[in-house]
């Protein structure tokens, strides 16, 4: 079942573009990565799904409910961690968390304690006294304390130290193992690659690709590196070869197509080394962006 379904969603801020004709679906229980550089429309998409802003056209449903009509109902079961966290400065951490919990018709006290302990959050400090990283921790606890079944993470790791990042990812994986669906927006491709099963790539407000990370990597080009004596770059100028370069007896290029063609060329050579790799998500991503 699709937890999130987006169809032709478009948002203009006056004349400036937010997102244009965005469509995708997020399946129950998956960690869906949503990647794109700053300004591509990641936050706009999330804010539309949370009904913080209203679509210009198109529609979106979460849990099968329309985001413009059933916002309050949908938000009962959603956790949201924004990229920049802002809370009432005068409040104590514990009071803010209690205030947040008060909106949900369940007892969140135990989960709140667990999460705060796990994230090493001091509950009795004032929000205004917290560093950015600590505010982010408040955001994490606040987003998870009501045990939501869908999580929106909008560039969640900004401001967290590497140790906390790892703890946070472990936490997200635990939640996911319990069946929580995660919508993970980020421009850090390494973390998306580690966490997600599927990704959507957004470019200048439009979806460029939605695909399994594995198929994305497999159906994409391979990275080939050949080390041999007397290499002739001309021999590898085949259809499907890009970024061909030769440096100190090492020939490297990207290849997309029937790999046997490359192997045939290689077989004639006296190799000292060869690697054929799948590209990293980062390289695929750059590839999509260089097309533009």
């Amino acid at each position, binding site marked *: 079942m699709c937890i999130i379904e987006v169809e032709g969603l478009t948002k203009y801020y006056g004349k400036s573009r937010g997102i244009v004709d965005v469509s995708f679906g997020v399946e129950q229980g998956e960690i869906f990565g949503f990647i794109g550089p700053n300004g591509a429309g990641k936050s706009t998409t999330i804010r539309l799904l*949370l009904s913080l802003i209203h679509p210009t056209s198109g529609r979106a449903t979460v849990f099968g409910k329309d985001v413009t009509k059933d916002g309050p109902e949908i938000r*009962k079961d*959603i956790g949201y961690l924004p*990229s920049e966290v*802002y*809370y009432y400065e005068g409040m104590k951490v514990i009071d803010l968390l209690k205030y947040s919990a*008060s*909106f949900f018709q369940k007892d969140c006290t135990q989960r709140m304690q667990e999460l705060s302990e796990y994230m090493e959050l001091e509950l009795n400090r004032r929000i205004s006294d917290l560093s950015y990283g600590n505010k982010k921790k408040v955001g994490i606890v606040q987003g998870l304390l009501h045990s939501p079944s869908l999580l929106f993470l909008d560039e969640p790791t900004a401001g967290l130290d590497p140790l906390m990042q790892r703890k946070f990812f472990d936490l997200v994986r635990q939640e996911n193992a319990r069946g929580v669906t995660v919508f993970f927006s980020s421009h850090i491709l390494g973390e998306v690659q580690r966490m997600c099963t599927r990704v959507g790539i957004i470019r200048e407000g439009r979806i460029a690709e939605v695909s399994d990370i594995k198929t994305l990597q497999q159906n994409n080009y391979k990275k080939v590196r050949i080390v041999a004596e007397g290499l002739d770059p001309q021999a590898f100028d085949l259809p499907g070869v890009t970024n061909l370069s030769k440096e100190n007896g090492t020939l490297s290029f990207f290849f997309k197509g029937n790999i046997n063609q490359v192997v045939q060329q290689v077989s004639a050579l006296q190799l000292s080394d060869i690697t054929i790799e799948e590209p990293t998500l980062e390289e695929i991503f750059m590839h999509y962006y260089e097309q533009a």
Partner: protein
Amino acid sequence: MNRHIFRHEFLIRLRSVITWSLSLALLIILFYSFSPVFIDEAALMNQVLANFPPQMKAVFGLNNMDLATALGFFSFIFLFVQLCLAIQAGNYGFGLVSIEETELTADFLLTRPVSRTQILTSKLLAALASLALTNAVIWISTFIAIGLFQPGRDFEMRNLLLLLATILPFQLFFLSVGLIVSLLVRRVRSVTPYALGLGFGMYVLNSLNGIFDEVAIEWITPFKHFDAAAITTTGSYDTRLVALNLAVSLLALVLSYWRYNQRDVHAVS
């Protein structure tokens, strides 16, 4: 209504309410402590006033006031009370939703499982409760002031009650107009200048009364709708103006709900 939002909103404004209320109580009691001097020297006072140019008197609303009575003198003070009330209520109105947006806590509040209508209702009721507190303090300090400084002097209790009863709709006007203006402009960066502008602007419009005779522009100001001097002397409201006042407040509230439900809440950029 959501009682958690109500409680939160009420507490966040509590310090401001206490400051405003105590200042107003002080203003009323201190000012009214001069009343024995004024009233005893009424003949002299009215002579001095007679020498003032009428425009000058109009600016201070003295043209139809009788400072020689317990209520007449109070209505003079009440004008300043109204000015403070206008700024306070305007402040709460302009800040009701805009502060959350400038301080970016709106993201938190609007991602809770409550509708925007519920949020706005809770916020409005919390603001009204805060204003009611100030209102109550004014009632109490008025009776204290009159009891302390004019004991035993006869005055029309009915007229005084009529005057004090205007406080609530007066506050509601500035609260709701402040709110709708904050929802119509693109972004309210700082609330105080707006509140001061609205409060003083309306006050000045009212002062135009009498300088230019019969200018309809003064009709839009609540200082005119609830003219203290007129109410204490005639013992009645100008029904048309009161109706106009309530209609403006109501319209502002209805429009505010509509705008707030449509509003896009933007992220930091």
